[in-house]
């Protein structure tokens, strides 16, 4: 039995608690430690994802049987999310080397704990363990929002925290109710037995689960914490929160209700999800249109993109689920890329007046930013187009073309505000001095741009892989 599933969680923890010790010796080794960690993480994840035939693997912690102990499950869905988390966090980690001053050991500690929490969250097969990991990721992410910032960022972090704690409490309540009804915390067992719960209780559990996680993935009307939190943080943190962290909420939404829903309940959940998603798409884009700060625009666009992602779940067909997972992967690449490249062009103050013409100071970064934004808008030949196209096709195929119309309208709205940002960033009337980019950050930004392109040209290959997973879920 290989110990890979638990190694993946332990590795970031080792990194997190080793960093301050190494810093006590000398700050010069920071780069080596971080690069070693990233390489090690990618190797471990690669071995886990591609190392076996691709079936479902169980890893009972401490050798206890699944009924009494905690089991970790590696199946198709968790493989996809592990890949998303590993790529997203590795890029953000490398980028931080240049963006976060060396003396901030705290930052790397929190970052490591956050990574461990997210891996644990997608690997665990135990419902209460899931709650523990949710809290672990949340607790690590609050200080990250406010790190190296003051005033408004602390307030944004506080607001983010209050909303997230509220959502965790709802999730905890629904977990307690499940345990009270079934007497087990094993997620597979729960999936099998949920039908036996009385209808009223099941609706309550589902409602709490969806509202709690809706707060986490920031669907409208539960979104108000997201724009300040994602906009006030430092660039790598914004990329991490927008690109990776909110996707873990999506993982949990896919994991539980779709397993347990049967017949009438399923129709009701899908009806609710698809309409919330449509409101979120339009509302998110309208919010973004009203912002006067580039980072806030990107944060609001994250809300809209979570809308697209939830829309695929609401459609409920195989194609919809494929679109959802594909768009989650794409959104990770393009939103991280947008925050990374923006962070290279503009160091501080992201409101429209301060960023005038800044794009001309770092033309290569502006080019990647352009690629990411076009991908975010959803125009060919970039990844965002491919996944939006699949979502649209899924809506038409399911006999609900109106939602394909919503996607098209969203594309139009986002085109408007991204065009505006570009007009401002490339404003020729303002003189700017050129900005030097460190090779490591430039490399990270380049990789995200490359991933956006890959998302389009390898779309068939990727969707075929995702389809195999999706068949297993439905």
């Amino acid at each position, binding site marked *: 039995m290989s110990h890979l599933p638990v190694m993946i969680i332990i590795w970031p923890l080792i990194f997190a608690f080793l960093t301050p010790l190494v810093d006590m010796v000398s700050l010069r080794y920071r780069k080596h430690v971080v690069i070693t960690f990233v390489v090690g993480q990618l190797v471990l994840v690669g071995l886990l994802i591609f190392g076996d035939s691709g079936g479902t693997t169980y890893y009972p912690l401490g050798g206890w049987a699944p009924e009494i102990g905690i089991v970790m499950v590696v199946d198709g869905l968790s493989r996809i999310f592990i890949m998303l988390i590993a790529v997203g966090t590795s890029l953000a980690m490398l980028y931080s080397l240049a963006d976060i001053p060396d003396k901030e050991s705290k930052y790397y500690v929190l970052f490591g704990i956050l990574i461990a929490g997210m891996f644990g969250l997608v690997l665990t097969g135990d419902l209460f363990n899931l709650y523990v990991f949710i809290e672990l990721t949340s607790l690590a992410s609050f200080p990250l929002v406010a790190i190296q910032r003051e005033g408004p960022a602390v*307030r944004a*972090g506080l607001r983010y*925290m209050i909303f997230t704690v*509220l959502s965790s409490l709802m999730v*905890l*309540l629904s977990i*307690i109710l499940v345990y009270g009804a079934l007497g087990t915390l094993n997620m597979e067992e729960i999936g099998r037995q949920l039908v036996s719960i009385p209808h009223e209780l099941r609706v309550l559990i589902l409602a709490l689960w969806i509202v709690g996680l809706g707060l986490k993935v920031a669907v409208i009307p539960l979104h108000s914490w997201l724009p300040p939190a994602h906009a006030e943080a430092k660039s790598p943190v914004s990329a991490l929160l927008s690109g990776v962290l909110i996707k873990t909420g999506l993982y949990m939404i896919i994991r539980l209700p779709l397993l347990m829903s049967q017949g009438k309940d399923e129709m009701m959940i899908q009806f609710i999800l698809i309409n919330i998603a449509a409101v979120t798409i339009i509302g998110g884009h309208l919010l973004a249109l009203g912002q006067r700060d580039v980072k806030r625009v990107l944060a609001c666009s994250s809300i809209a993109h979570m809308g697209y992602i939830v829309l695929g779940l609401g459609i409920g067909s195989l194609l919809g689920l494929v679109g959802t997972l594909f768009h989650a992967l794409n959104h990770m690449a393009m939103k991280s890329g947008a925050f990374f490249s923006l962070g290279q062009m503009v160091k501080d103050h992201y409101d429209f007046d301060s960023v005038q013409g800044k794009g001309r100071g770092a033309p290569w970064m502006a080019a990647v930013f352009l690629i990411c934004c076009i991908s975010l808008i959803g125009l060919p030949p970039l990844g965002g187009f491919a996944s939006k196209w699949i979502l649209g096709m899924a809506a038409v195929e399911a006999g609900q073309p109106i939602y394909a119309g919503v996607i098209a309208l969203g594309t139009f709205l986002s085109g408007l505000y991204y065009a505006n940002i570009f007009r401002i960033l490339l404003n020729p009337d303002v003189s700017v001095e050129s900005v030097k980019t460190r090779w490591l950050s430039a490399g990270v930004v380049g990789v995200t741009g490359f991933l956006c392109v890959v998302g389009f040209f390898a779309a068939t290959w990727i969707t075929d892989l995702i389809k195999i997973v999706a068949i297993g879920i439905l």
Partner: protein
Amino acid sequence: MWGEIVDFAYWVVVGLFLIGFFGVLTDTNLIKIAIGLNIMEASLLLLLVRLAFSPGDSPPIVSEGILNYADPVPQALTLTAIVIGASTTALLLSFIIKTYKYYGSVDLKEIRRMER
């Protein structure tokens, strides 16, 4: 007798949860919001402990002649949840302290007025 007291526990849970929730939603004082979140948390812990126990159960320690044990799992979960709740509260309070140092107030209304 036991049944009545135990069922009363559910109403206490619902009551505490709603009191906490109401506080979080309506109050503008950050400290009071933190207290509200704690009350909600406490109600959930109470629910967990209540689930573990039915009248006549003995503590979950294996010994001869005892057949009905209280379920030990929720009690372990309660301990975990208490630890998580304590650390969340600590972090929340430290954020409130930082906010107070910057704005000189813990009232959200006043902070909002200051930002304008």
